[in-house]
């Protein structure tokens, strides 16, 4: 679906926005010229100030498919240049310029005949493209087994909490690193290699793995998976750096 000749700038209008977590907002855009996008892809969003100054940032898409409705999540970065505007000022009815869809590497296609299991591992806001994959899986009767391992700090940081709870075709494990939900049997704690092994397909199942999150998180997970015997050629990563 992501065809290079269709990657161009579009104008999107905000038709919905709501706080998804403490400092994160979910934006729903109506983009009439959107060609549709694969699960896992992203876009560049560009803001233009009245004097012509421009800044752009990349955001993963939570939505996929043919729809011209596009959903993304913006986390506010303290002292950021773009994210505070998007989180606090961009209102319903406002327009933004977006370029995309982008990405052919970190995507999952529901029509993929490969039935080997798919392992999704998310660190914080890295869950967004992985959520789009799990959502795409939800719409397909017969396909690969899906697991999502989602590492977050506190229950208030969980994105798409309701939708994740409703998924029937993806097994979701949420690991809270700083604070657990009330009545949780598991105390909070950082994800460990044993934790990853416990909540993911084993290397012998030869899964395809997608990991998304901050760079340090991604690199640590990759290291552990390799130690657990996973094939590096079947691991795909997307990293967030210190952008704002």
């Amino acid at each position, binding site marked *: 679906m992501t065809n290079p000749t269709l990657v161009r*700038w579009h*104008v999107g209008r905000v038709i919905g926005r709501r706080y998804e977590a403490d400092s994160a907002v979910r934006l729903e855009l109506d983009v009439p010229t959107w060609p549709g996008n694969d699960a896992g892809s992203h876009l560049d969003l560009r*803001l*233009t*100030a*009245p004097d012509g*100054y421009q*800044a752009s940032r990349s955001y993963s898409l939570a939505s996929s498919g043919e729809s011209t409705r596009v959903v993304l999540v913006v986390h506010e970065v303290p*002292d950021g*240049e773009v994210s505070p*505007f998007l989180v606090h*000022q*961009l209102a319903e009815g*406002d*327009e*933004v*310029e977006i370029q995309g869809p982008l990405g052919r590497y970190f995507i999952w296609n529901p029509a993929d005949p490969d039935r080997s299991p798919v392992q999704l591992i998310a660190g914080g806001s890295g869950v967004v493209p992985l959520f789009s994959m799990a959502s795409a899986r939800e719409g397909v009767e017969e396909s690969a087994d899906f697991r999502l391992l989602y590492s977050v700090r506190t229950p208030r940081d969980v994105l798409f909490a309701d939708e994740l709870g409703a998924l029937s075709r993806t097994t979701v494990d949420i690991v809270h690193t700083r604070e657990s939900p009330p009545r949780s049997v598991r105390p909070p704690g950082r994800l460990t290699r044993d934790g990853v092994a416990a909540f993911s397909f084993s290397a012998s199942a030869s899964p395809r793995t997608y990991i998304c999150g901050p760079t340090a998180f991604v690199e640590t997970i990759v290291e552990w998976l390799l130690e657990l015997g996973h094939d590096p050629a079947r691991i795909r990563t997307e990293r967030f750096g210190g952008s704002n």
Partner: protein
Amino acid sequence: MGVINSGFGGRRGSSNPNLPPGQTLVDDWPVLTAGPTPAVEENDWSFTIRTEDGTKHRWNWTELLSVGVEDIVTDIHCVTHWSKLSMAWRGVSLDRLFEDVETSHDYAMVRSFGGYTTNLPLEDLLDGQAWIATEAQGSPLSAEHGGPARLLVPHLYFWKSAKWVRGMDMMPSDDPGFWEQNGYHLRGDPWREERYQ
């Protein structure tokens, strides 16, 4: 296209007559980096000026400090539109380092640990315009800001103030360094908005 996002200002602050055109005052000190941050211990550090006849003038950390560290209060201007005014620095004046340097070349290629380069006319490096800076804002220069020592040439855009400086090679022509090879101005005077070629 043509969408204007009113209310979006980017990194904007109040306007100030001490600011060159197109600059905005900031309170923090942004870090912009083109690669991994080099980790250089003072023990391993040296600064070398090489001239056309092959002569090397070299200072290790102790030798550099012995030349004499002075206080500097100056404004810095980044080509990415932010400026800091009246910033406190400490460093060794390049005038002192060039005292015994003999060269007929008019330009220098500044080299850094990690491979960064930038070019400057000698004219911009002397007469109280440049230092090897070791401290900023009252503390030793942190690695992310170019420590243990960086070049400080505040009258030009700050990409010329090479972080992790390790030496200068005198050269006869104004050959472009890293950013200059990629479209940035050869000289970079903020008051003339010399940002790009």
